[in-house]
C-alpha cells in the first residue's frame, strides 16, 4: 500500500507538473484539493485522465463517490487497489 501511495504521489507530481515538490512533501492523508495540496478543478480532470491511462480506471466526474476517491492520496490508493482485485 505504501509503495502504491508513493507511485501515486509521483504520478500526481509528473502529471500536474508540480514544481519543487517531492513525494515526501505530500501527506497521504491530507486533502489534495483546495486547502491541502492546493490542486484545482483542471487538476482533477487531468488526474482523472492519468488514472485512466495508467490504471484503466474510468470515473464519473459528477458522482459523489468520485469526490471521495479524490479526497487524498490514500483514498486514491484504495481505489486503485480495489480495481486491481
Amino acid at each position, binding site marked *: 500500500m505504501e509503495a502504491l501511495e508513493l507511485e501515486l504521489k509521483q504520478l500526481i507530481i509528473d502529471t*500536474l507538473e*508540480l514544481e519543487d*515538490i517531492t513525494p515526501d512533501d505530500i501527506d497521504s492523508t491530507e486533502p489534495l484539493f483546495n486547502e491541502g495540496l492546493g490542486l484545482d478543478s*483542471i487538476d482533477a*480532470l*487531468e488526474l482523472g*485522465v492519468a488514472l*485512466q*491511462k495508467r490504471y484503466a480506471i474510468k470515473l464519473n466526474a459528477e458522482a459523489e463517490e468520485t469526490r471521495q476517491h479524490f479526497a487524498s492520496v490514500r483514498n486514491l490508493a484504495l481505489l486503485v487497489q480495489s480495481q486491481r482485485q
Partner: protein
Amino acid sequence: MAIALAISEWSGWQAAVEDNHSELPEALTVSEAPDVAVIPPMLRRRLNLLGRACASQVLRLMPKEGNLPIVYCSQHGDIERTLKILDELVAGEPVSPMHFSLAVHNAICGVLSIQIGLNANISTIAAGQQGLVPVLLEAAGILQGGAERVLCVLCDVPLPEIYQSPDSLPPMPYSVCFVVARSEGIRLSLEQTDRDCDRSRADQLPTCLMDFLASDSTELALDHNGLVWTLARIND
C-alpha cells in the same frame, strides 16, 4: 489618417543564443529563461516558455496599483500545447484537459490576470508575423474608449519542428511589452502609406520597436498584410 499615441515604457526578453553578436537595445533582457520567480509555483506551472516570456515582461510594466487593459498578440500562440493535443488525438488517447484549457489564445493572459488580480479588459490578437500594427490600432481604440493607458505585449517561440520551414520565425523565443498612453512618453504618429513593402523587412520582428525607441531614428516602417505603415516621432 494619422493616429496619435505615445509609448511611455517598454521592456523585452529574448532567449540567449550563441551566435547573436548584434547590438541589442538596453531594455531587452537576454537570458536563458524568463524570470517569473515572483509567481507562486502552483500558478507558475500553468505557464510554459511562451507564457513565461509574456509574464516576465507584463509583470515588469504592470503598475502595482494599476489595472491596465492588456492587448496580447502572438503569431502562433501556444502551438506546442495544440500540437500535443493533436498527437494525443492521433494516438487515440484521451486529450489532456490542462493542455486543452491552456491552448486557447487568451489562456496566458487569464493566468496572468489571476496573478495580478486584474479585471480590466484583455484583447488577444493573432496577426501574422508583424503584429505591431494591429496591436497599436487596438490600443489606440481602447484609448479612444476612455482608458488612460494600455499595456501591450507581443510574444512568440519558434515553431515545433513539424511546422518548421527555412524562413519560419521567430528564430528564438522573445517577448516585447510596452505601455501605450495618450500623450505621456515618446509621442508617435501611426499612419498607413501607399509605399511598397520592402523585402529587406521580411524577417522583421516586433522587437524592432525597441530598437526604434532607443535610437535617434525619426520613423519605423512596418509591413503588415501587404501594406506599409509608418510609426513616426512627433517633434514638439
